[in-house]
């Protein structure tokens, strides 16, 4: 096996095949009895408003969380190569990493103090 990524594709294909096959089978085997009420959204009989799919608004908190995630996740990913190569890099890497983490903490403290982490 030359490329270590190819076996991943095997497992991916198996998983996808299984999922498609079982959903497909249930489509064929399962009953189909049309009923307008059954096709409505799971509510008390009222159309949900605003329309969820392709419209409507969601609370801004979620965008904020997503953006904070991107910032902090990327910062944590920067620690990975550092951690893996730590035993080859020496004291220099340790000092630089501490500086980096301090910088992250500055941003983190700012976000916290300015209310970016409150959830209400």
């Amino acid at each position: 096996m030359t490329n270590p990524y190819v076996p991943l594709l095997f497992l991916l294909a198996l998983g996808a095949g299984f999922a498609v096959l079982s959903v497909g089978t249930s489509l064929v085997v399962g009953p189909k009895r049309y009923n307008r009420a059954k096709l409505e959204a799971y509510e008390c009989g009222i159309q949900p408003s605003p329309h969820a799919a392709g419209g409507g608004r969601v609370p801004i908190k979620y965008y904020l969380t997503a953006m904070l995630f991107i910032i902090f996740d990327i910062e944590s990913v920067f620690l990975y190569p550092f951690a893996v190569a730590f035993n080859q890099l020496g004291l220099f890497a340790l000092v630089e990493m501490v500086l980096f983490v301090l910088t992250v903490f500055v941003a983190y403290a700012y976000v916290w103090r300015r209310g970016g982490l409150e959830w209400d």
Partner: protein
Amino acid sequence: MPAVTVSFASALPAAFQATQVDYKAIAPMLVVFGGALLGVLVEAFAPRRLRYLVQVGVAVVALVVAFVVLVTVSVHDQGITLARAVVIDGPALFLQGTLLAITLLSVLTMAERFGGEGPDAFTPMGASVPGSPQEAAALRAGLATSEVFPLTLFSLGGMMLFPAAGDLLTMFIALEVLSLPLYLLCGLARRRRLLSQEAALKYFLLGAFSSAFFLFGAALLYGYSGSVYLSDIAKAVTTASGDLDGLLLPGVVLVLVGLLFKVAAVPFHSWTPDVYQGAPTPVTGFMAAATKIAAFGAILRLVYVGLEANRWDWRGGVIVVAALTMVVGSVLSVTQTDIKRLLAYSSIAHAGFVLVAVLAFDRLGVAGVLFYLVAYSFTTIAAFAIVSMVRQGGSEASHLSQWAGLGRNHPVVAFVFAFLLLAFAGIPLTSGFTAKFAAFAPALAHGGTYGVWLVVIGVLCSVITAFVYFRLIVLMYFTKPVEGVVAEQVSPLTTVAITVGTLATLVLGVVPAQVLELAKSSSLFLR
């Protein structure tokens, strides 16, 4: 545990090697970024009442310390460092020093309070009317306006890195670091907020486009040369086999588009008037002066270090751009009725003048650019500071008709402004004249026929802009004053900024020799 298989071995990275960092050379940038981080902490933890004072203090101290470090330490420790990503050489240091001085003056003007609690030009909340209960509530809630100082420092950090970038990726990161805080600062105006927010959005969208152009161009150049380092690209241009020549010119053009956008060269100038008009006036001054310095520094490095070898291929386009920039900037400034738009078009024209010097392809050309940037930026800071002083009913009197007769009520302010306008026009005994001379002389000497033509166009355009400025001076001195327009009493901070800017304009016009000499001696790029 050496049980690594052969099949995997081909894809393995080599052993890690720590890069060498010349901390002395990059110390000014570190000080600036450290000051910015400190500012963020102050914003997070200092009590609201103290924040303004502490922030201004931190910013000023950081700038002064960075300047002192640059002058005393970094100049003796030039070199290529951080795995060739950062090049600290003559032009870089010269521009960084200029940027630090200019930003110091900008911070002083941004700190102007006109007797209020926080900086007068900035709003704590985009939706609140100046002086309204909402604004007071926003201030009480801790949405202070002192964030502009760390933002300015971050932007400055990017600007200092921009002309020192040794590879295209660092250059791109510097471009983003300098731009993002500016986008924010543009939208923070306290008065005429819709204009300000529109300006910020326009600047952001167009800036994002130009960044994309730059990045795409950098990708093409990387494809051509196999390296993002400017010196490697230069080597590839002279030695390449020619198979990939199709990538070179598009790459150069796209990268240049990205940079010319930042200096507001025609046809990439359309954002300039709107953004200059909408942004808070101290920020406009900062943008007009500092962004131009940084972006021209980057253009110089890219063009002189990376792309000089094939300049015959792309020079024609930039010549046309330079000519267009001068003509469009000066002609359109004739029709302006808003003082900030007028200064915006004048800054476009000035970008054209600087481009003429860039195209000389000579050490003297570099020196000319450096000197022009110093002269122009000091004058600009002082001019915009005065614009922020002249007010009617509390908000800036930015329409030209409101400036009528200012000379009768406020002779000193009007005189200083007139003097600065004369410098913009390039009248002898002002820095504008020496700067134009320093920019045009190398173009005449080394630019060949095109250089001569560009200089002719430049002189003609100077005449046109001189007409605009003289018209404004006439308006200030020889017409009836408008009711209610006053030049507000400013704090010592702004006074210092205006005084220093004006004095620099005068000194560089009368005894420019030392600065010219410094520009000449620091005009050599390390490759």
